[in-house]
């Protein structure tokens, strides 16, 4: 009976050496969005972007392992060990290396967003494990088909192309099969879409079974080398694609769905400020937020509630895109955007008036920000014309400012209302 290859001679160990610095490089390069502290869902989902490296290692390592078995096809046919044991013995180091690197990827993401007591998203972790298995099986199949000189680079290229190309095409369903779209999950008011997780996991697991059974046939582990190319593997692959596309059909371009608002934790005396527990992990800002909102003039209409959400203000209350660690100025600016609404009014009117409306909108947001956080300083990044308009408004007496703000707010909601100038 053949002695299993010892761990120290597994090719994936060599691949780990360049993979670790590459993972760190990719992690640094992908650190573009603001981290969401306290949310394990966001941390695990964001680590999916780094799956490119663990998947490449698992795929290439498996291709090299399969190449080793491929050179011994004649021995495989008469092997007394179970084909399953032989396959598992060949693939486990590559799979373990992929999982290890992905754990490192989660750690790298968590380093920027540590803390909190949210639950670990088991579904997302399961989907990631299934995605890695798919890449591993694809590499193993390539190694069973081709010589290592071609199989290893093609396994690497396939792994990246599958993740990358599907994410770049306009047909959304393959994105959910490839799984990279899970990276788009989730702000605090969102949760992973169950169908997105199910589509990625189901497709990956059935395709993995197809590729591994085809590989077992090609490598002579099932006795007859060529017969296994058709039959069961083809059936499994068709099932994988059909089931995956069926599950992914109702999904859009992202893998998120709104989170149940029952999880909101509300507090406040005159205005209820509602945040999710993860947003409260590093300190409770609700009193601060309530005080800011109460500084708004009642003439503009005080909201009954402030809700943690990225969406536009609703009848339920004002929305706030709150991330732990935000300064007073940032909170005030986010609240001001909520008061004003993110949707720019589309009016059929002369360009000059549209520009004036936009400038009034910018100035109103700056005015609201200063009103809510007077000690935090002015909002930066405003266009010079809007900044000049804001400065002029701030020189007006208090009732003049209020009149201007009311008129400006109205002009942003109704095309028939002319945007006010600074003297009104």
């Amino acid at each position, binding site marked *: 009976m053949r002695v299993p290859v010892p761990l120290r001679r597994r090719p994936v160990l060599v691949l780990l050496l*360049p993979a670790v610095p590459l993972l760190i490089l990719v992690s640094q390069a992908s650190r573009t969005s603001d981290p969401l502290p306290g949310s394990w869902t966001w941390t695990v989902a964001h680590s999916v972007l780094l799956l*490119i490296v663990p998947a490449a290692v698992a795929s290439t390592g498996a291709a*090299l392992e399969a190449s080793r078995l491929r050179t011994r096809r004649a021995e495989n046919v008469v092997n007394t060990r179970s084909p399953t044991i032989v396959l598992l013995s060949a693939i486990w180091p590559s799979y373990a290396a992929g999982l290890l690197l992905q754990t490192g990827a989660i750690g790298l993401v968590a380093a920027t967003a540590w803390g909190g007591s949210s639950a670990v998203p088991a579904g997302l972790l399961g989907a990631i494990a299934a995605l890695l298995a798919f890449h591993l099986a694809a590499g193993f199949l390539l190694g069973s088909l081709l010589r290592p*000189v071609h199989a290893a680079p093609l396994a*690497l290229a396939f792994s990246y192309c599958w993740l990358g*190309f599907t994410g770049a095409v306009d047909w959304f369903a393959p994105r959910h099969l490839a799984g990279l779209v899970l990276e788009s999950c989730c702000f605090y008011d969102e949760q992973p879409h169950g169908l997105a997780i199910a589509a990625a996991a189901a497709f990956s697991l059935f395709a993995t079974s197809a590729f591994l059974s085809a590989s077992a046939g090609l490598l002579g582990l099932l006795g007859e080398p060529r017969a296994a190319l058709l039959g069961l593997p083809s059936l499994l692959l068709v099932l994988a694609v059909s089931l995956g596309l069926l599950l992914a059909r109702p999904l859009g371009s992202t893998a998120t769905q709104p989170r149940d608002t029952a999880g909101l934790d509300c507090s406040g005396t005159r205005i209820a400020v509602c945040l999710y527990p993860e947003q409260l992990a590093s300190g409770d800002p609700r009193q601060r937020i309530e005080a800011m909102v109460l500084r708004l003039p009642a003439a503009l209409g005080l909201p009954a509630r402030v809700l943690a959400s990225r969406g536009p203000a609703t009848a339920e209350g004002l929305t706030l895109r709150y991330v732990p660690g935000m300064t007073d100025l940032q909170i005030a600016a986010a609240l001001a955007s909520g008061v004003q609404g993110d949707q720019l009014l589309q009016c059929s009117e002369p360009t000059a008036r549209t520009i004036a409306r936009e400038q009034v909108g910018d100035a109103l947001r700056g005015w609201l920000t200063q009103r809510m956080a007077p000690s935090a300083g002015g909002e930066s990044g405003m266009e010079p014309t809007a900044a000049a308009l804001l400065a002029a408004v701030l020189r007006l007496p208090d009732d003049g400012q209020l009149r201007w703000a009311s008129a400006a707010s109205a002009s942003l909601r109704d095309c028939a209302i002319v945007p006010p100038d600074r003297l009104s």
Partner: protein
Amino acid sequence: MSFALRAHGFRRAVLIQLVLAALGVSVGGMTLPFPSLGGTGTAGLPVPVLTALAGSIVLAGPSAAAWPAARTNGVRSASATLIAVLGLTIGPTALLCGAVALLLPGAAAADHLGVLAWMLALQLAVGTWISARHQAMGPAVYVLLCALLGRSGSVVQPWAWPLADVPSEWALVFGLTALALALACLARFGLHLASTP
């Protein structure tokens, strides 16, 4: 040399090279959408980069197979044979690209040839210093790095020059210079045979 040409699939490689060159030249201006971590969304990979990558990978198998199984006194002649066979394999592609470049100055013929030479140089460098069997990993990893990290905003990193819109003559000079250096190393040291598995 004629045995090497016949026995290790170099003739088939010539045909594949010509097809890839035709593809690379005919759709040279096209980019395929691949996500870039440092760039602006899906900046894309130019088609000549992918055809050149495929061209170099095609040559990896015959090159490794044509090399003697052990380092012997015949290493020098083996190097000369391999270099000559590689030259004969790429020769028709070079002629095709040269002809297209003369007839259609705007086509991406020189780009394809320059990038192919650069990829082959990387492949031979890996084959000489790391592993003959896994030499094709050199250009494959390079293209992966280019796709992922080759852009910073809208700027292409200097090391990822095949992604940039460099003048054709510069692509050709840079690629051929690198290939000449790689061939010199190959002639001096031969392919590296110790590898796993």
